[in-house]
């Protein structure tokens, strides 16, 4: 799978919690995921959603997605048109929720990626190319469990396809 898009990186990069990803002001009120997506990362950058082009990447630092177990955070990201999140590390409940919803997460050094950089992510070859800065980093392949979940489009689709766990 080859994903292409621009990096979307906020000024705050570390410990971006689920309340920052989607504020509690909206997450309990809005059920339509496309409406929810319009408020993604709003408290960090009110213009964040309007800058996203379909296929873009969220780029962040350490411990992205810490906090709540609620799936509104990965949903808001997915339905905003983000194709993958690239960060130094992810909080664990957020991590599993993303794969369960079919949103890929990439762990790698992100210091050299700036907001607006053009990126190309080749999930099969395990390579992330920064076209703006002309460098390439190797990306660890996903464990089989994650790969299967992504290929099937998330846990619900996986379940519908196989009638149970076939990870």
């Amino acid at each position, binding site marked *: 799978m080859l994903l292409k898009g621009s990096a979307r990186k906020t000024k705050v990069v570390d410990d971006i919690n689920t309340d920052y990803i989607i504020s509690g002001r909206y997450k*309990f009120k809005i059920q339509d995921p496309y409406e929810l997506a319009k408020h993604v990362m709003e408290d960090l950058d009110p213009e964040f959603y309007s800058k996203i082009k379909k296929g873009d990447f969220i780029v962040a630092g350490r411990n992205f997605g810490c906090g709540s177990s609620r799936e509104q955070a990965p949903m808001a990201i997915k339905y905003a048109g983000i194709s993958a999140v690239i960060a130094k590390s992810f909080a664990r409940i957020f991590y599993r929720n993303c794969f369960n919803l079919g949103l890929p997460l990439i762990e790698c050094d992100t210091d050299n990626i700036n907001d607006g950089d053009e990126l190309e992510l080749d999930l099969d070859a395990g390579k992330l190319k920064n076209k703006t800065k002309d460098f390439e980093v190797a990306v660890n392949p996903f464990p089989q469990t994650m790969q299967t979940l992504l290929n099937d489009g998330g846990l619900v689709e996986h379940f519908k396809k196989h009638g149970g766990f076939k990870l």
Partner: protein
Amino acid sequence: MSQTITEKILAAHCGKKEVHPGEFIEADVDIVLGNDITAPPAIKEFEKFGIKKVFNKDRIMLVPDHFTPNKDIKSAQQVKEMREFTKKYGITHFFELGCMGVEHALLPEQGLVYPGQLIIGADSHTCTYGALGAFSTGVGSTDMAAGMATGKVWLKVPEQMKFVFKGKFNKWVSGKDLMLYLIGKIGVDGARYRTLEITGPAIDKLSMDSRLSMANMAIEAGGKNGIFIPDEKTKQYVESAWKSHKDTKHGKALYYSSDADAQYMSVTEYDCAEIEPQVAFPHLPENTKPISKVGKVKIDQSFIGSCTNGRIEDLRIAAKVLKGKKRHSDVRLIVIPATQEIWQQANDEGLFDIFMKAGAAISTPTCGPCLGGHMGILAEGERAVATSNRNFVGRMGHPKSEVYLSNAAIAAASAVAGQLASPEDL
């Protein structure tokens, strides 16, 4: 091979002799939990599977606790969906208002979670039950849906970290302080994806309420699970819960422990003599300071309650501090016993009399203000000291409000002083 308690429980739930950190397993779950925020989306996902029954109607726990008593139409609808699902599938454990409590205080008290189990819950603080020597972890609504359908969950076996507490406790220190201290040392991602096994001679002396309060905050260090080796206290706690609820149909508790030569990625020792009551400053639980170093921080509200510190031990401590005193005229004091039984007990012990005379508002059980839900929201620029577990930006209300996390003694003393304070300062 030598194994830790966590590895043993995971192995026993996937039919293996042993498991290793990094390994992916498909495990059988004993308990699947959801609340009024996370269960409705899980129910929606469950219905998509197109199956006619849940994996086990006695092993699904549905607790409407976050916005109950229903604060608005939206929350009333959410609880209604849970109630309808309960009836449709014959779920045994749906906790209606009047027997409802904050989920992580409620399930241990009811004897529904116990040693040796594997528990998943669509709530990040599901890690609380590790205090009983169970493997317990927070998941999302999709995992909850799959868990309700199949009784299974996919898990990566976490790396194992061990924390050993030694030495004597300082005055007014409870489990909460040991945990805030630990998080202050290792940071909010210090145990990311990992197990925190919490042990040592000081832990042996801790009450079950204090252990539950510690395990509750494992997620605030990024942990997958926090776990305590079950001992005689654990056994007494669980058996007395079964007895008082006349529960004769419970399963068998399994008291695992870690092998002496089990492998850990790190072993850290802390001396309790160095641990004062702690306060976590905004906006992360790792921003801890000992109470002697907090300086002058005026507060507008003090909240005593939540799944971290809304248990009877916390209310007794708060009452001890508040007895014969009044809240500062600028401070709103909110006390929320975490469950109906704790409420009843606090009432029977005369604690409410002390709280009322101190000028507190006492509420029926709810998560309420902890997550900025209802029953004590903060306005712009306001500060609260709270016995809960999270102090992120806007957690209890306005994005420009602040939350300071502490134990019940500090929260009570601060309510009297009008600023962050120790009972020793009053």
